[in-house]
């Protein structure tokens, strides 16, 4: 099985759980502490894609969240093969931010880049503010699959990243 390298980026509003998702995915750990990311943090995780006969070494760029989407962030997005967009199921505004990020991606020429939407903190059902229908609408608009996830319980985390890896792999095959 050959190994290929791919750079992917995590995008989303502040505190939606991007870093926690990466930590859960890479190290299988979760912490309740919130340490806001400054700039970017890079991790690596190999994912096996048996149907494509490849092992994909994902270089995961966890970018700082927030609405001050600056030129620096665009610099970090350059050369990315795919993106994970993250919103927080307990904060409705974070879903609208997903659209803002998607527009920014288009602006820097990343139209049609493989992407998945993770609706995170699914374990906090009582505080849920986002309905399935709203997610469906955005997912259709951005043409990207979506998953519920919980960095805390680990639910949907592997599946989310694997789905992006598959998207990237099938896109590479077609190009």
């Amino acid at each position, binding site marked *: 099985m050959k190994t290929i390298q791919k750079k992917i980026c995590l995008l989303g509003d502040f505190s939606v759980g991007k870093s926690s998702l990466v930590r859960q995915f890479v190290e299988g750990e979760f912490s309740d502490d919130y340490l806001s990311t400054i700039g970017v943090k890079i991790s690596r995780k190999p994912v096996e894609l048996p149907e494509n006969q490849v092992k994909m070494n994902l270089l995961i760029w966890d970018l700082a969240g927030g609405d001050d989407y600056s030129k620096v962030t665009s610099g970090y997005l*350059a050369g990315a093969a795919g993106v994970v967009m993250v919103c927080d199921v307990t904060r409705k505004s974070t879903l609208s931010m997903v659209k803002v990020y998607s527009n920014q991606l288009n602006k820097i020429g990343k139209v049609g880049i493989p992407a998945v939407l993770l609706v995170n903190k699914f374990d906090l059902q009582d505080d849920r503010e986002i309905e399935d229908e709203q997610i469906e609408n955005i997912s259709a608009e951005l043409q990207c699959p979506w998953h519920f996830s919980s960095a805390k319980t680990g639910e949907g985390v592997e599946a989310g990243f694997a789905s992006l890896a598959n998207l990237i792999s099938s896109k590479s095959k077609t190009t």
Partner: protein
Amino acid sequence: MESTDELTQNYPDHNLMSRLRELLLEKERAKVQNLEDEVDHLEKEIERIHSEILTAEEVVPLVTRHMGDITKEAVEGQSSKMARALSPIIGEATRYQIQESRDEMVEALYPIVGAAVSRAVAEALNDLRKRIDQQIRPNKGGVEVNLMNRLRGVDPASVAFRNALPFQISQLFLIQHDSGLVLEFVNQNTEELNDHDLVSSMLTAIRSFVNDSFSPDSNEDELREVYFGDDRIIIESGTVAYAAAVIKGVEPEGFRAMLRMFVTELHIQHKESFEAYDGDPETLPDLQPTIKTFIEEAQSKKKDTSNNLGLDLSNEQSTKMLRTVGIISLLLLLGTCAFYSILTYRILPFAFGQDRLIGNNISEPVQEVAPITIVVTATPDAVFQEPEPIPSPSGTQLELKQIELASGKWSRTYPDADAPQFVAVDAGTELKVIRSLGSWVEAEWTDSELGVVKGWIRFDWLGDNE
């Protein structure tokens, strides 16, 4: 002594008495009993405490076990207070400890001080390298280098020293600009570096951050060097990929240019595959041998230059040549000095006038100094004063004359070179000489702006009188 029974039998009232006593003292008796119980209890308690109290030897391990936690809590809670309280003791303790057991202290401090010194030395050597490089750049090789360096005031020994400093390329990365993906990686270290893909990504992120933050509009200014500990990463960039060389020690002169050339060469040959690289290493050429050759060349260049630039200071040829050039330079220098001295001497009169007494030449219109032709005319009228006979420097008596100034001069308010300048007199102005004093004449003329004016002019400005 009678028993109670006997008492009761002998004295029938006794029963009554004791009954009465019982009734009267019942409370006190109970109290006494309580007190006795309490004393018993306290005695037992004292005994128990006695048994629990430990000797100093027993206490120490118990406290030591918790010392860490106690100190940690105290430091975290009141760090500044703790620092204030401990600093005098620590200072004193350190001094005492150094006096008492110097060797132990040296051993204990070595890892910290050793690292600090090593870093300081590395920095100092790097500064030295930069200073020498600045002085000896640009550079060729062989004897001329030594010569040029000597002329630039660089001691060849310093150059030799600079080039003898150790240099090693521990790793060389070739990285795709945007993605930060590794195109090729060569590790010369004995230890494996498994995270080279993370390192290259992080380096790319840092570059991107620095470039976007500090020169967002320029593609030319970019991060070129990163220091970490004793190592440095030297970065040279091509259009789609950049090379990052992790080096230890002092690189040979011109190493950066060499690296740039290498990156350019790689781009000429493989730019397309670098550009198209999407993470599948099979699409890339094998650059390991090329990179290894480059590393070897760079490292051997260092050795060459250090051998070369020690420059065989005893080398006879070099010394001879130096001596010859030294003599030629000296002769040239002497020649130049002589030339300028003569030139200065010659132009001195032109620059300052013939009489060195004239100090204030700053605002004198600098014009060609030509002999002045005095046009002798009939004096139309003798004005202001009775004209005095004018002695010329050559002793010829001059009469009131109308003369023409052949070159422009500043007149003075009184007959002294240091006197305030009065009015500039243009060349060709007709002056009516009124009187003379020493080498000065007082004259009258018509100024285009001020009308008729009168001032002092040096006799020799008027040139030879005919």
